[in-house]
């Protein structure tokens, strides 16, 4: 194994490292400390390889690997472009925070139940979905993700967890069947499963019945997995049952990778931006996005269990992603990409912080929390950053992501989407102020036991993610420029046709 081999295969390492480590940790199941160290080392190595990949992608545009030496029409390829590599780095960062948090949260019983191998398998699947260049391969990664997630949710084998996992598994399998049907129809029409070749087969041709059916089957499947209205009900009834580290990883990663898949398929293959897309696709996306934003935030504001507040917020936030996609302009896609990275990191942080609140107060209930501002000031400061970012207050990344989506919507003529996004933002601000007041400012109710200390591992995990949202907010220009490049790269025709305006001219 020499250095060039390591660098040439850059697109494979973010998948291979956690997958191999999953097998190793499975063998070390009863050696808890060793198992944990292997998991942590693997997550670090995975993040490092994703960063290496990002560096390669910045200088070479795309990095691809063809397995077994079989070229694109026959073999399966891994193709990392800017969007895939960016997603992979975000996944690595969120995974690092979860791994640090798990030191304090995942005790020996959960480790023996298999937290480490399943967590690593899920990470491998998420990275695989971000980096594969083959549509059927994408479907396979989604199924691996699903199986690992089901195992993670039921880690404690509680009745509520089993119930939640059944709901999650049945609906996800149904969604996966729709996705597979859509892939089959696309294959029947184009004769290939490679995303790039598929795009060139479809480009410039008017939509056919098969392609329209495929588009809406894929929309249904991906909308279900992303947690979009009206197919999101499995999400708030399963995520809150899992252990905190698991909820955080699921909330951060799974819905976002499903959104990434829909972005990739609808923009690159179906040509959402060039206007030759399947009729009604953008309208359907806009309707779904508007309903998701409103329903998600309204339902979140009605909850009293903090886990459920954030579970509904996960759906509310993916509504903004779909809104960015539905605008069907380069600026909208770029906004959705920036928003995807922001919300991937932020949702992980919010759930982790919820775990810290529960650790301190002994309850997940808003009504039983209170007084943490005075008792746990350092945690309060960290969590304030995350809550303000979710509410969309500058200078955090939450402000810029919402600003970009709303700005792109006004410019793209989707005024209604922009207004609904604004309304949902105000409602989120209300919800987060309420949450902050209840948890940190309210006079605490009578407690049977004193407030416990928050372990340093939990604070460290929150620091990583708070630093990310501050960094993405302060250095917004380089990140958005990268997002615009990534958007131009996934949109067919924009880089090759010189008559098109450069992407930078269209963005805010």
């Amino acid at each position, binding site marked *: 194994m020499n250095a060039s081999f390591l660098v040439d295969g850059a697109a494979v390492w973010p998948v291979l490292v956690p997958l191999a480590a999953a097998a190793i940790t499975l063998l070390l199941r009863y050696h808890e400390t060793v198992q944990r160290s292997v998991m942590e080392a693997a997550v670090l190595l995975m993040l490092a390889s994703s960063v290496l990949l990002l560096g390669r992608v910045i200088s070479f545009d795309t990095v691809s690997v063809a397995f077994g030496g079989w070229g694109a029409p026959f073999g399966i390829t891994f193709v990392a472009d800017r969007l895939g590599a960016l997603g992979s780095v975000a996944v690595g960062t969120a995974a690092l925070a979860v791994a640090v948090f798990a030191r304090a949260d995942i005790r020996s019983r959960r480790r023996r139940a298999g937290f480490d191998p399943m967590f690593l398998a899920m990470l491998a699947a998420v990275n695989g979905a971000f980096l594969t260049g083959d549509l059927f391969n994408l479907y396979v990664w989604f199924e691996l993700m699903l199986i690992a997630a089901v195992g993670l949710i039921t880690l404690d084998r509680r009745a*509520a967890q089993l119930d939640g996992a059944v709901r999650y598994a*049945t609906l996800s399998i149904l969604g996966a069947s729709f996705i597979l049907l859509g892939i089959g129809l696309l294959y029947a029409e184009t004769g290939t499963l490679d995303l790039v070749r598929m795009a060139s087969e479809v480009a410039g041709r008017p939509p056919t019945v098969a392609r329209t059916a495929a588009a809406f089957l894929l929309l249904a499947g991906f909308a279900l997995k992303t947690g979009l209205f009206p197919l999101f009900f499995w999400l708030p009834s399963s995520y809150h049952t899992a252990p905190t580290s698991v909820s955080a990883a699921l909330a951060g990663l799974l819905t976002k990778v499903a959104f990434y898949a829909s972005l990739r398929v609808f923009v690159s293959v179906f040509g959402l931006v060039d206007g030759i897309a399947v009729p009604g696709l953008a309208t359907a996306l806009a309707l779904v996005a508007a309903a998701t934003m409103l329903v998600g935030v309204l339902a979140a504001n009605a909850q009293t269990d903090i886990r459920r507040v954030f579970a509904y917020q996960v759906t509310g936030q993916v509504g903004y992603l779909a809104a960015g996609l539905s605008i069907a302009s380069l600026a909208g896609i770029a906004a959705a990409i920036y928003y995807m990275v922001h919300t991937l990191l932020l949702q992980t942080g919010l759930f982790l912080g919820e775990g810290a609140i529960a650790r301190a107060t002994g309850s997940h209930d808003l009504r039983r929390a209170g007084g943490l501002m005075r008792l746990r000031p350092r945690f309060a400061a960290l969590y304030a950053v995350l809550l303000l970012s979710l509410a969309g207050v500058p200078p955090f990344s939450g402000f810029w992501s919402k600003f970009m989506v709303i700005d792109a919507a006004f410019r793209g003529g989707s005024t209604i989407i922009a207004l609904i996004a604004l309304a949902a933002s105000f409602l989120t601000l209300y919800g987060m102020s309420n949450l902050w007041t209840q948890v940190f400012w309210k006079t605490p109710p009578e407690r049977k036991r004193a407030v416990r200390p928050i372990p340093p591992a939990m604070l460290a995990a929150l620091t990583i993610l708070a630093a990310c949202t501050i960094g993405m907010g302060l250095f917004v220009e380089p990140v958005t420029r990268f997002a615009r490049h990534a958007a131009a790269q996934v949109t067919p025709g924009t880089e090759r046709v010189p008559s098109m305006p450069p992407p930078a001219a269209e963005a805010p």
Partner: protein
Amino acid sequence: MTATYALLAAILAGCALYMILSRNLVRMMLGLSLLATAVNLMLFLTGRIGRMQPPIIPDSRTTLPQAATDPVPQALILTAIVIGFALTVTLTVLIVRTYRAHGTLASDAIRAADTLGDPLRPESKR
């Protein structure tokens, strides 16, 4: 032939969706497996049905002969069957554990996830 096949897949998918709507978890699981079968039949159709040669490249050539079938759908179905099997096993284990924990298979009687942190209940347990 193709029409018959498509009709068969459609009927299977219809039966599967009907079973998935059932309130019995085991019936729902069987419905999902049946749906996977219907999808596999559809995948089979994407390779077109007809009298064709097996997809084997002869020694004298480097590409498939013109009359060969498309090997990709067959590979896809094989993979989809394996994945479907894994999903069915996972779901079965899950349903067995759910039955042990709740003592019932009626999905509308299993509400543990809903009651956990329900805002309408006075104070949620940990």
